[in-house]
């Protein structure tokens, strides 16, 4: 077999045993790798209807055929589990050396089930798994955990770990790897914490051969050269922080808990200003020629740096009403060290602050602490003290337990907090956020591209947006399964054709562009099947009440009926029923048979 190891490692934390299962060519060709293969493994290994914190909820780490090829941006991996925020599929991706090390252990994926009785860390290699006592790691931050284990096991080990937030089952806890990169969304770190698993080390030396090494050598060279052209200039120079000022100018920067679409003091948070006024160091993931990462020096911190992305700056700056850069940078650093998703943290705090402002909740400390208000709340969330214990449950659950009157402005979809794209000013994105299988997700549809282009009217809710979002989701599913970094996509002249050529050079298959496109559709339908199995209903595809009832300060608005029309257009584009279920004929067309436990009465 080329391009894959062909094996999955199954780890049972309770019994401290492991097993291997083989992966057939048929499954690999259907689901590819990354989030696609991880979704298939999740469907197979997650018992129907279990609580996300049940020991049997699998935590899956999955590589892809591109991992190990040294193609630019190919060192990425996916994590999947049943999300403790949504109760639906939770998948997240991260990058760098861990991906290649995982694949070098001789496995394409690792499925972890069970829960340890006492805190553990495990080491995965070609020999399987070793289980270690992990209690002495408790309380360590993500960077401390990584450096501690590297000093103990060797610098060549790659570590995935949780911080104190994951230990304390903060529902939006992340899994951290390679110096602070995060599998950030949907609470995968909380599931890891529920298994009493503090860290995983990967170390291996297996080499996976590709079918056409010479062709790949040329491909590497060409793609690397193209990847440092104008198509990626934005990411190389300024990173995702380039979004902040533009979004603000276009009234699509969610601010003050989505009450406004722009702020006045944007220079505090814009990439343009930060790059001009602050020391910024550029960084790369393994095998990446782009280098989008920007490590920003935190003022008054003895040279400490934090990895800054647009989503963190938006969520811990304008969204929570913070007006100074220094606090935002410190809070971002704190979240990464503690292992929590900056988006979910910011949205949850923004909601709470509005509740206090509207006297729905009494909290005498808010207001007295000034710029430290947000950092105090982050501290309380991570360690579950005071109101932080409830906020650690995420916006959806917190709004039920703290202030039900605040549910209309609890900014989440299906339990996952909203990212920094204002739906009322970006209608394709509005639809994508409403229907995404993992909740309010900005990374699985690329729908904003349509809003930010001359071909789409970003203020108009129109019936054509269903096909735009469905196509974008399928495209993204292919990217996330091969796995390419999203930031390399503009480098391709014909994405599907060129990607099919690449996968054929790696695997020796004869895949066509159309077959690859079909893989994307299959993967999205599989994710939806999982959600349907776990209780998805039509009402779950929606947006927060605030979005559907309150016009934005710049006049942009979106009504419930407009969203309903776009959702119908999406279901139609997908070939689903009017209620959003998948007909058996569609499953047959996509080859979605042979899945364990499909309950057809629930499907459509």
């Amino acid at each position, binding site marked *: 077999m080329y391009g894959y190891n062909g094996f999955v490692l199954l780890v049972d934390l309770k019994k401290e045993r492991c097993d291997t299962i083989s992966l057939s060519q048929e499954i690999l060709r259907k689901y590819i790798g990354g989030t696609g293969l991880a979704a298939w493994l999740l469907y197979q290994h997650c018992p129907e209807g279990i609580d996300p914190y049940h020991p049997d909820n699998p935590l899956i780490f999955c590589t892809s055929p591109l991992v190990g090829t040294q193609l630019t941006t190919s060192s990425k991996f996916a994590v999947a589990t049943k999300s403790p925020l949504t109760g639906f599929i939770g998948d997240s991706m991260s990058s760098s050396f861990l991906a290649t090390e995982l694949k070098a252990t001789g496995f394409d994926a690792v499925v972890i089930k069970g829960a340890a009785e006492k805190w553990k860390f495990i080491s995965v290699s070609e020999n399987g798994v070793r289980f270690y006592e992990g209690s002495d790691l408790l309380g360590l931050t993500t960077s401390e955990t990584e450096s501690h284990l590297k000093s103990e096991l060797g610098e060549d080990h790659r570590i995935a770990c949780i911080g104190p937030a994951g230990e304390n089952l903060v529902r939006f806890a992340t899994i951290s790897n390679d110096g602070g990169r995060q599998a950030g969304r949907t609470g995968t770190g909380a599931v890891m914490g529920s298994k009493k698993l503090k860290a995983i080390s990967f170390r291996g030396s297996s080499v996976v051969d590709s079918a056409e090494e010479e062709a790949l050598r040329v491909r590497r060279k060409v793609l690397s050269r193209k990847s440092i052209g*104008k*198509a990626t*200039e*934005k990411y190389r*120079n*300024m*990173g*995702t922080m*380039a*979004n902040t*000022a*533009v979004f603000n*100018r*276009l*009234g699509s920067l969610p601010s003050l808990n989505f009450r406004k679409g722009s702020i006045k003091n944007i220079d505090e948070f814009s*990439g*343009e200003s930060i*790059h001009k006024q602050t020391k910024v160091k550029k960084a790369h993931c393994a095998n990446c020629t782009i280098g989008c990462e920007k490590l920003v020096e935190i003022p008054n911190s003895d040279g400490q740096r934090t990895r800054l*992305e*647009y*989503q963190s700056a938006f969520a811990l700056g304008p969204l929570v009403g913070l007006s100074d850069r220094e606090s935002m940078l410190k809070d971002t650093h704190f979240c990464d060290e503690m292992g929590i998703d900056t988006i979910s943290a910011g949205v949850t705090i923004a909601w709470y602050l509005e509740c206090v402002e509207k006297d729905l909740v009494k909290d005498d400390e808010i207001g007295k602490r000034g710029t430290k208000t947000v950092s105090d709340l982050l501290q309380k969330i991570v360690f579950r003290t005071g109101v932080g214990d409830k906020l650690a449950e995420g916006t959806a659950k917190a709004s039920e337990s703290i202030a039900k009157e605040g549910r209309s402005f609890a900014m989440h979809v299906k339990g996952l907090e909203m990212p920094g794209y204002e739906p009322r000013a970006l209608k394709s994105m509005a639809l994508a956020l409403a229907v995404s299988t993992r909740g309010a997700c*900005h*990374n699985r549809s*690329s729908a*904003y*591209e349509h*809003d*930010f*282009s*001359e071909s*789409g*009217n*970003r*203020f108009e809710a129109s019936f054509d947006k269903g096909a735009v979002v469905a196509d974008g989701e399928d495209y993204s599913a292919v990217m996330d399964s091969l796995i390419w970094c*999203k*930031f390399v*996509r*503009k480098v391709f002249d014909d994405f599907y054709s060129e990607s099919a050529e690449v996968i054929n050079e790696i695997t020796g298959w004869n895949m066509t562009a159309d077959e690859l496109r079909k893989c994307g559709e299959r993967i999205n339908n599989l994710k939806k099947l999982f959600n349907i199995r776990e209780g998805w209903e039509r009402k779950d595809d929606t947006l927060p009440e605030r979005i559907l009832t309150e016009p934005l300060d710049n006049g942009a608005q979106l009504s419930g009926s407009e969203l309903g029309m776009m959702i119908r257009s999406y279901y139609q584009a997908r070939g689903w029923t009017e209620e959003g279920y998948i007909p058996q004929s569609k499953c047959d067309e996509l080859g979605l048979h042979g899945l364990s436990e499909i309950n057809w009465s629930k499907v459509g």
Partner: protein
Amino acid sequence: MDDHINLTVEFYGTSRQAADTSQLNIEIPSDNSVLWSDITTTLLEKLPGLAGKVIEVGSGCLVSSYAINLNGRHFINQEKTAFKDGDVLIIVPSMAGG
């Protein structure tokens, strides 16, 4: 009769780095509206850093990794748009995630 129109061009992201300014007000001879091709000479004259990085030398086209938003509303095809007095052209890197 005034035979000039006034336009504002705003720069964001890497276009601001190339322009070395956040915005520029320009005055173009016209009694009604102007096309992109009428603006580029003035832009390149006043902000030579745009040449090759944001505006293609020779063709005057916008480099493909940039887009233009008009007045904070819609993104436009610069070749098919007639710009009127008071318009604000917002030049941004093409959006692709983050």
